[in-house]
């Protein structure tokens, strides 16, 4: 009965991020978008993160954000994925695993680098154990900044990926 009296938890979709959209405009291949349609399977890869980004990515699945309503869902294997959502400064010990995950992801594919560390290694960039940002290992289509980015920031970035200029 409580369900009848109270509104749903799920909130309105956030505005599309202009910066993210602009970055995408340059990089995303329109033909690939047409082939995929408005539905993306995401494989998350932690390439060295502190786990902060993972917590916020997890939150996308809770009832407030409900990622799947946008046609976005997390999958268990890179072989099923259109998008690799990569976090962390890439550690030397994870470089090969990230490369292999990228190779295992079928074309066409996008790489979204999540968090300040994923941009350039962040606070860890000067370490012997860190290779750098995600872009040092695999080509990156979109960066979502933040330490960690909020679920809303993550959603904005992912929506921009779906609705890049030119549409499908």
């Amino acid at each position, binding site marked *: 009965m409580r369900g009848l009296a109270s509104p749903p*938890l799920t909130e309105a979709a956030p505005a599309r991020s202009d910066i993210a959209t602009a970055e995408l405009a340059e990089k995303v291949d329109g033909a690939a978008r047409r082939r995929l349609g408005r539905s993306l399977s995401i494989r*998350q*890869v*932690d*390439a*060295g*993160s*502190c*786990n*902060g*980004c*993972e*917590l*916020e*990515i*997890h*939150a996308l*699945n*809770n*009832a*407030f954000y409900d990622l799947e309503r946008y046609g976005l869902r*997390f999958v*268990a*294997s*890179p072989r099923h994925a259109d998008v690799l959502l990569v976090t*962390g*400064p890439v*550690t*030397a*010990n*994870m*470089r*090969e*695993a990230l490369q292999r*995950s990228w190779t295992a992801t079928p074309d066409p594919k996008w790489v979204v680098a999540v968090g300040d560390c994923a941009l350039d290694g962040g*606070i*860890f960039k*000067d*370490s*012997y*154990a*860190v290779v750098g940002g995600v872009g040092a290992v695999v080509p990156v289509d979109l960066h979502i900044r933040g*330490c*960690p980015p*909020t679920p809303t920031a993550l959603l904005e970035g992912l929506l921009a990926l779906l609705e890049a200029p030119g549409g499908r």
Partner: protein
Amino acid sequence: MAELTATRTVAKDAALSQPLDAPRWQEFGEDLAAGQKTLVDLWGDTDRVHMAVTGPGHAGIRVVSLLCPDKRFPSIGRTHPPAIRLERAVRDLYGIEPEGLPDQRPWLDHGKWPVRQPLGKRTASAAEGDRYSFLPAEGDGLHQIPVGPVHAGIIEPGHFRFTASGETVVRLEERLGYVHKGIDSLMRGASIDTAARLAGRVSGDSTVAYATAFARAVEAALGVTISERALWLRALMAELERIANHLGDIGAVCNDAAFALMHAHCGVLREQVLRQAAAAFGHRLMMDRVVPGGVACDLTPEDADGLRRLASEIRPRFRHLVAVYENTASLQDRTVGTGKLVPALAQQFGAGGYVGRASGREHDARKAPGYAPYDALAFTVPVLSEGDVNARVWIRIRELEQSLGLIDQLLARLPAGPVVTPVIASSEALAQGLALVEGFRGDIFCCVRLDAGGGVEACRLRDPSWFLWPLLEAVIEGNIVADFPLCNKSFNCSYSGHDL
């Protein structure tokens, strides 16, 4: 000898000037093996090794050091297995050889760094990767299941090598180190501010606990007394962090038993905690809010009301979820009797947090050695002895309830005053400080050494997972492969905190 006592955490540098000799070092190893002491940590330094131990009751922590002019020291792991991985890491990072260590394989060094012994000789390496020999398991019809480092879910990376007989796990071996970021080396020469930010990113789920451990160690080193209000705000954030993590993990354990309903409801409550944390302290995970000298933000009366409302809203809704957990036979069927950790092992490894407390080890750093403001607050530390997944879930349920009670008390009696005290560099050549802080998954140990300019000379941060990961290998034995996710989630060890 540096000592951390229940009443005073100041520990001026003495351990460095008065190192032990090798026979006395070995005596500590024998005491550990005999169960008279508990190993808190063992770590390397440029020319020596350090060990932190505690006696019965955890009243004080002693740090002892052994100079290693010829780059070797008598292995503690030889007689006390909880030290084995710590010593493998000392060898990898510092090139100091633990003599007699039963496991000669590297641990954090996968042969992928451009240097060997990055905190020792720093010899160049081709970084082509080393072969790693997993421990053998022999018998008819055994098969291996390699998992990771990239796992199926949204989780940190690590490798699990299962050897199974049919569905039953005969041996699990972990291989970790994938998210090693070289934090020890980044700490060296860092300013206190930078080091505090690094400490807050050792394990993102415990950012408040880590930042508090680092801040308290710095304050101990410099003899800084912070304001009462700052102490209480730190505790408020620490309890919010504990609640958020327990909510997430209680739901996730149930989800691994195919009971998504609990996961969904716990996820909603967790989100509400994070949102209130963001409103009150400006960051959902409260990163960089605890700083040496106090806290970086104050709490307004309106936000205090918001937190009060949050606690009062969570309480009845969580009670309802607990009833669901308790009364769902299909859930109980998966969690009761699964992944049993016997109390003797929990004791031997000094298992902290809910893992230790579900297996009869009654230790909580908030009580012993204890630190302010917890000495002024009423709360109990739940303990069970069954040691299964169910017991670990129940410890978390009870801890969450206690934390809600702590939040009420902290808000009701929050002292007025400033929230930050200036941290002034020591005039002494070196200052060393220790701290032990109860994070959600157990006690986090910090030992920091500051130079005369107020920079960090060395900082050691030990995650509770160092002693929990080996126990996960023990509890899965004899369980079916399908119960591993349950066992794993009920431990929820940190990869990043361990790999450092």
